[in-house]
């Protein structure tokens, strides 16, 4: 361990503190016993968690976010998996065109997507309804399913499917017994990403959730405009734990499937 090494380690250590510190502070503040936001907390307690669990508004938004995300997972995973299977076998030019459309939400700035959807959904009465949120979030989530299923399809040895055919399996039988089990990790990773995409989504929700479909991020945003009270820290901590657990699962699954 030379002096240079020690200096390098210190620099990287400080950068990592900068990365982790804000998240840690939010989690610590959520256990504060103070009635206002202060750090370090004078004492610890669960009052902000009981405030959250005692509030119908917060719980309603949480349930809405959870079931909208569940519907998005179902729609995006089904449509996305089918599309990934199709795109892999499309001829060149069509494949480029189809991929461009499906992957474009990853590039187009989210504010542009959000106001475009708001502009059109308002005419069809889809603003302020969970249906509108599900349709919009599915468009944002599907690209993740298509990329992760597409990646696991690329990893399949084509000889496996050929072997199944030559042993007399039907196309349907080959798909169900060979292809589907092999891409299952990719589908699961895509589904987890789809869930997080919808559950954390704020910008589209700001425009189309209206007053009838206030999701959890939307309620946090509305509350922040008026006050920075520690209930939001408690909600944040709960969502941090939920998303980190799900993303951790996706990360481990993705690694195991080497996609």
């Amino acid at each position, binding site marked *: 361990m030379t002096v*240079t090494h020690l200096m*390098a380690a210190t620099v*990287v250590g400080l*950068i*990592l503190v*900068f*990365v*982790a*510190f*804000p*998240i840690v*502070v*939010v989690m610590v503040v959520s256990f504060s016993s103070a009635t206002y*936001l*202060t*750090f370090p907390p004078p004492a610890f307690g669960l009052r902000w968690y009981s405030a959250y669990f005692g509030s119908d508004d917060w719980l309603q938004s949480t349930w809405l976010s959870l079931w909208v995300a569940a519907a998005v997972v179902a729609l995006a995973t089904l*449509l*996305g998996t*089918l*599309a990934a*299977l*199709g*795109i892999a076998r*499309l001829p060149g030019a069509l494949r480029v065109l*189809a991929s461009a459309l*499906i992957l474009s939400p990853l*590039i*187009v*700035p989210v*504010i*542009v*997507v959000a*106001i*475009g959807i*708001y*502009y*059109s*959904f308002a005419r069809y009465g889809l603003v302020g309804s969970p249906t509108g949120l599900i349709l*919009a979030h*599915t*468009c944002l989530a*599907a690209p993740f399913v*298509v990329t992760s299923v597409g990646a696991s399809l690329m990893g399949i040895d084509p000889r496996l499917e050929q072997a199944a055919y030559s042993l007399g399996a039907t196309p349907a039988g080959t798909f169900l017994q060979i292809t589907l089990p092999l891409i299952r990790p990719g589908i699961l990773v895509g589904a987890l990403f789809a869930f997080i995409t919808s559950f954390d989504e*704020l*910008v589209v929700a700001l*425009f189309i959730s209206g007053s009838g479909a206030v999701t959890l*991020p939307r309620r946090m*945003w509305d509350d*922040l405009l008026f006050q*920075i009270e520690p209930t*939001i*820290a408690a909600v944040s901590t709960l*969502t*941090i734990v939920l*998303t*980190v657990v799900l993303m*951790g699962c996706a*990360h481990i699954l*993705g690694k195991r499937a080497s*996609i």
Partner: protein
Amino acid sequence: MWQRAVPLLLAAPLLLFMLAFYAVPVLSMLMRSINDPFWTLSHYASLPGDTVFLKVFSNTLYTSLIVTLGTLVLGYPVALSLVRAPRWAPLILTLILLPFWTSVLVRSYAWMVLMGRHGLINEALLVAGMIDRPLRILNTPLATQIAMIHILLPYMVLPIANALRLIDPSLARASSGLGARPWATFRQITLPLSMPGVAAGVLLVFVLALGFYITPAMVGGPREITLSMLIAQQVDQLNWAHAATLSAVLLATALAIIAAFYRLPGIGNALRMSAR
């Protein structure tokens, strides 16, 4: 024939879904920039003389530039340590990924807690006696820059780490075997070979920073607004033609930057690698 139609039939449901609920809505909104109230390019023609637009646009580009530089300066050493210190790599990767997996809203809120008038930074500086009264940090451009650097850092670290991982370690050994000092080896071998990763990171961070809305709106305050915030304001005032024009400018800027970067050698590969 039927066999050849199967792939298209499989892809069709999602393609139609995304056309109906995403592509057509966005395009018909963008059309308002050229057909409101009749076919005209006047909304675009008035932009060069629009001082609000010019100020906001240059502020957005400037913010993206600072954030890109900030993530590069902080991200490169982290990426290097991720590859060079295998013993610490799992810890470093976890510390980078945990905030990455936390929503932008929550991380922006965390910075509000830290930078507020009675936030941790001000309290610490007061206790240390470095200031007599709280500094104004929240609702300044600096607050936006710090929070965005924090949020976008992983997008810089991961592609650079991937590029560094691909460098043949025998090159560095050969260089030092031939008498080069560590700094010379880094400058002449490691740095040039990691450039595709740097370019991929710069592209990702800059394009994402251009479109940032939540963070500048939460911690940046109403004075130094970004293009995304101006677009949202125009929508609130139901000024659809102007909102659509600004959206087209934002989208075109992002696409132009992506197109420019895609000509660089090796970047397509670096981006694909970091998408994993």
